[in-house]
């Protein structure tokens, strides 16, 4: 298959199908409805099942049911609808069920609007639902990267028996780019011996639940989960850097904002200002290493986000006082321009002194 021109939302859906996802439960919401529509058409073609649930809450619980049988399953939504799924996501974590949950973020809080935003960063990286947990979060910046990361999301989910979030902003969902669906790298994954597909006199009944009435036993389960999160932190960090080796200043941005920032960086470089980029691809686990490696030699970092300043907190934790950390953001669905980012660079660096 050659290159095709697709919308970001369609790419997420097709990439999921190619990764072996045959079950989708969802409820439409702008700006991710094309994903739902594509699945409704596509899944019957591959012998899968698409079901439009009566609500986001119903959808996430259907995901819970399907995941319990060991199949690859996905749901998607946008910010307000994603909030509704939090209880179910916490149940998935507690029951150790793999699934992929997509959030195509829009302007908030509340009903907000349908324009692109990244202001659900706290929600996806710091828990979101109740209880002690973290979820691996992948944030693609291009439609081709969606293909790769959607596939990875399913693999990570199966490898650790845990839900994985794929997060993009409305622009990524709505924009069109050429993409190619190549051969997938099949990674070796553990057999799903826990799946509740019925016993055939071959052992004790399998039970999937997040309920544990005994306090000591629930603490033991929490220890087990924390060990799992520690393994994910060790193995599943993803990021990309651009010209950080000689950089005096480093912009930190993820998703589409990183692409805008890249232009501002190139413009600054042309003017003689040494600027680089760290683009976190996994938002949790947050990539600390590129900060540890640069924080004692750069003059400062600037986090650029479509939020009032959320990822910047993780940047500060990683930098830990070794260098200055600044922030530039736009909210409410306003997309920062490359000129704004460039101006911020100038003001932070004290301008160009060539």
């Amino acid at each position, binding site marked *: 298959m050659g*290159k*095709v*021109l*697709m*919308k970001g939302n*369609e790419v997420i859906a*097709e990439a999921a199908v190619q990764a072996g996802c045959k079950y989708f439960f969802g409820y439409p919401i*702008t*700006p991710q409805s*094309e994903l739902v529509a*594509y699945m409704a*058409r596509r899944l019957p073609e591959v012998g899968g099942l698409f079901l439009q649930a009566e609500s986001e809450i119903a959808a996430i619980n259907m995901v819970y049911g399907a995941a319990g049988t060991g199949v690859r399953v996905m749901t998607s939504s946008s910010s307000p609808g994603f909030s509704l799924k939090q209880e179910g996501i916490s149940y998935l974590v507690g029951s150790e069920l793999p699934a992929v949950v997509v959030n195509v973020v829009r302007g908030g809080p509340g009903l907000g*609007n*349908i*324009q692109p935003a990244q202001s659900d960063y706290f929600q996806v990286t710091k828990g979101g639902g109740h209880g002690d947990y973290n979820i691996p979060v992948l944030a693609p910046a291009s439609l081709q990267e969606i293909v790769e990361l959607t596939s990875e999301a399913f693999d990570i989910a199966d490898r650790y028996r845990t839900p994985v979030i794929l997060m993009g902003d*409305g*622009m990524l969902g*709505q*924009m*069109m*780019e*050429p993409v190619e669906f190549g051969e997938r790298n099949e990674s070796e994954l553990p057999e799903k011996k826990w799946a509740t597909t019925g016993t055939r006199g071959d052992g004790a009944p399998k039970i999937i639940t997040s309920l544990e009435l005994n306090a000591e036993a629930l603490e033991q389960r929490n220890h087990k989960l924390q060990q799992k999160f520690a393994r994910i932190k060790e193995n599943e960090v993803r990021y990309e850097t651009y010209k950080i080796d000689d950089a005096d200043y480093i912009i930190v941005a993820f998703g*589409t904002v990183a*692409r*805008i920032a*890249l*232009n501002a960086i190139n413009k600054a470089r042309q003017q003689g200002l040494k600027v680089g980029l760290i683009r976190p691809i996994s938002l949790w686990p947050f990539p600390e290493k590129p900060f540890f490696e640069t924080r004692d030699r750069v003059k400062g970092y600037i986090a650029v986000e479509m939020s009032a300043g959320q990822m910047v907190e993780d940047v500060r934790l990683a930098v830990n006082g070794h260098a200055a950390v600044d922030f530039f953001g736009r909210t409410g669905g306003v*997309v*920062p*321009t*490359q000129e704004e980012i460039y101006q911020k660079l100038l003001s932070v660096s004290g301008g160009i002194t060539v």
Partner: protein
Amino acid sequence: MEMNKRITILTGHFGSGKTEIAINLALNEKKIHNKIAINDLDIINPYFRSRDVSDIFEQLDIELIAPANRLQTSDLPIVSGEIYRVLHDQRYRVIIDAGGDKDGAMALGQYYHEWKELKPELIFVLNANRPYVSTFEGARDTIEQIEQAARLQVTGMINNTNIGFETSMEDIHKGYEFSSRLSDLLSIPLLYTSISVDIEKEASYFAKRHRVMFIKRYMKLPWEG
């Protein structure tokens, strides 16, 4: 490329490039005619619609008929009642940019009585590099569904086959061959091929032998110059 009729409606499958063609058509018509109105009837897309480039229309004195400003990003399937004014005013050249697929074409169905009288051109825009219209069956089904929802017959096709910024002449040839055969199969005339000005040079030989409209892209992403 000039419009054959006073009223041209652009339909197509989802993401076929209707809106960019509508904008380019409006700009071309403005060079010849005085009063141009472009109607944004897109009730499907939340972003990248005619109304999102309203400043260009304003500069060029092209009337944009779209939901009121305060409702432009409301995510409601609304169309402006002002369309009737330009439909019946013979001085206007009218371009109607409908949303994609049958769902988008549904917004056209309500003007059934207008269409009976006004006999507009209904164009199907085809990008053969999009899912579900890269086969004859897929394209035919899409056209049939659009006709049913719009309560109109498609009178012409535009070959807009591309893969965005990576489009090569190979895509253009492939799309031309596909749409020519589709045109024969369905007896719908292929009006012309639209090609980005970015590859105008490479396309010059093709443009000598075939009808071509070179188009500029107006809806850009924040990192595109």
